């Protein structure tokens, strides 16, 4: 399978600590790929490597056959990778609409619109994520789930072909998670490939075609959500060896 995104032996160290070691996988066109693993597994680091926030120490990342590792973040965005931040990073003094418009003003080569078109597209995107009624508010008055939606809206406004979602469901209550799931499905139906980091297993099982498990910065397992969650190594990584031994024992 030739993927939209290919990672080959990606390695990232901070000082002496290896955050990612030799991670390789590919993301297929139109796929929703889940990226899971216990805290500290290197999931967010991996996203930062893909989006150009970090430089790799070794390995290759290509988007549709083109090397993107070593490019600065804005060029990665230009090539069509959008992302959200786990800890939301809104433009606080701007309105919701302006936040989304920044994504459309810049973003991928397909976005990069003139201001008028950018605001029109921002309105469409806000409609898509359910923030349209709050378009004129400043970010300060948004609730946490709305701020997460805004992260997604801003990334969507860049017209990405690949969207990286970093725990957009964390901290949401079950109803909000359902809404967010619906939103992810809508976005996906629009033809966007998605990689999502998630701790909420219901989300992973609910939308992901395939799951990759990282553990301590290394590739641990891969498969459909059901396969992966049955995998003894994965259970051990999450819950410790004793629990796994008892369960499989």
């Amino acid at each position, binding site marked *: 399978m030739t993927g939209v995104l290919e990672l080959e032996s990606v390695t990232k160290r901070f000082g002496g600590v290896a955050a990612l070691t030799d991670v390789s996988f590919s993301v297929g066109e139109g796929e929703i790929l889940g990226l899971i693993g216990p805290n500290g597994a290197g999931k967010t680091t991996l996203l930062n490597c893909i989006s150009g926030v970090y430089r790799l120490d070794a390995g290759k990342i290509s988007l549709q056959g083109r090397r993107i590792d070593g490019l600065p973040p804005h060029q990665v965005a230009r090539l069509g990778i959008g992302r959200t931040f786990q800890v939301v990073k809104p*433009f*606080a003094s701007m309105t919701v609409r302006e936040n989304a*418009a*920044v994504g459309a003003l810049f973003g991928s080569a397909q976005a990069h619109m003139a201001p008028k078109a950018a605001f029109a597209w921002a309105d469409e995107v806000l409609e898509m994520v359910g923030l349209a009624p709050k378009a004129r508010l400043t970010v300060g008055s948004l609730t946490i789930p709305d701020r997460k939606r805004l992260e997604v809206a*801003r990334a969507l406004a860049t017209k990405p072909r690949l969207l990286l979602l970093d725990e957009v469901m964390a901290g949401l209550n079950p109803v909000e998670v359902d809404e967010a799931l619906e939103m992810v499905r809508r976005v996906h139906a629009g033809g966007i490939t998605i990689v999502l980091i998630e701790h909420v297993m219901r989300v992973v099982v609910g939308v992901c075609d395939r799951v990759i498990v990282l553990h301590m910065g290394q590739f641990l397992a891969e498969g459909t959500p059901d396969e992966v969650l049955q995998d003894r190594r994965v259970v051990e990584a999450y819950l410790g060896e004793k629990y796994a031994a008892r369960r499989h024992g």
Partner: protein
Amino acid sequence: MARPAFSTQPSRAGRRLRRAILVAFLVVVAVVLVLPLTLTQQAADANLDPTTLGIDFAMNKSIVRTETTIAMFVALAAAWNLIGGLTGYAAFGNVAFFGLGAYTVGYLTDKLHLSFALALPLAPVVAAAFAGLIGLPLLRLRGHYFAIATLGTGIAVGEVIKNLDVFGGATGLFPPILRHADALFFYLMAANAGLAVLVTWLVLRSRFGYGLIAIRENEEAASVLGVNTTAYKVGAFALAAALTGLAGGIFAQWASFIDQESVFPIQYNVEMILMAIIGGAGTLFGPVAGAIVLEWLILELAGGGASAVYAQIGLGLLLAVTVIFVPRGVVDFFGGSSRLTLGYLRRTLRETSV
């Protein structure tokens, strides 16, 4: 739900007040712009012989001088606003660009005997080129590091120039005096101030402006959304430098004598910031209002001689009071939800203190 910090819907009374202020402002602008013409007229009537001119002339001359100085600071504050207010980088060394612009004109007219008209366009070019050069390393820094590194730039550039004999060394440079040109200098300074405001207006409406504000609010988020942060920051810095350098270039010819002390005063760095902040950093007219009020105050208070010391003390106290009580700028009161009440002062005080 909490009220948004910056509402964009002023009350009806607020709108009426703003319209009244705008009209009054336009009238004042008209008077200010026309006054220097009378000066030229008076000089012409006297057949360019200053000895036959009376008290009126001297009086008008001093008013025009004040106006020119104020226009200069409007340009400096508005230029600072581009990098400090819009982009959020606390530049503390813009005086380097002022000095470079001044020395460009000074050197070209004094040493190379170029005409002022030919020399002036080079002032913003030199300043912007220098900003681009130092911007690349310095704009990688954040917060205090950027602030003090730029402060150092302002001091160091002045010192280097003072130590180079080609630039007149400690003696300074003497652009040939242009007689009866008070009106000309006023209009040049005012045009530069207008240019600075126009540039800000255009920037605020453009992709460039949204990119700068995005950088100010969250640089990492801006970069993953596709903002070329390095290019944008250096661009804003160079733009600010060009406007500041142009002001310096005009100043050099106006003063017809420049040296390190007169065109690299560290204090300008802080005055232009204070003006922008008092008026409202990041807004279009905030820095203009701040510059007019503050520079007028400084000129009134200073009046030359011993009272200069008191003026400086006053300025220092004003700085303290401003940053302690009005961190969001006075324009905030006119532009939006907050009104200048005791409650507002108490609230901002509580927000920022321990």
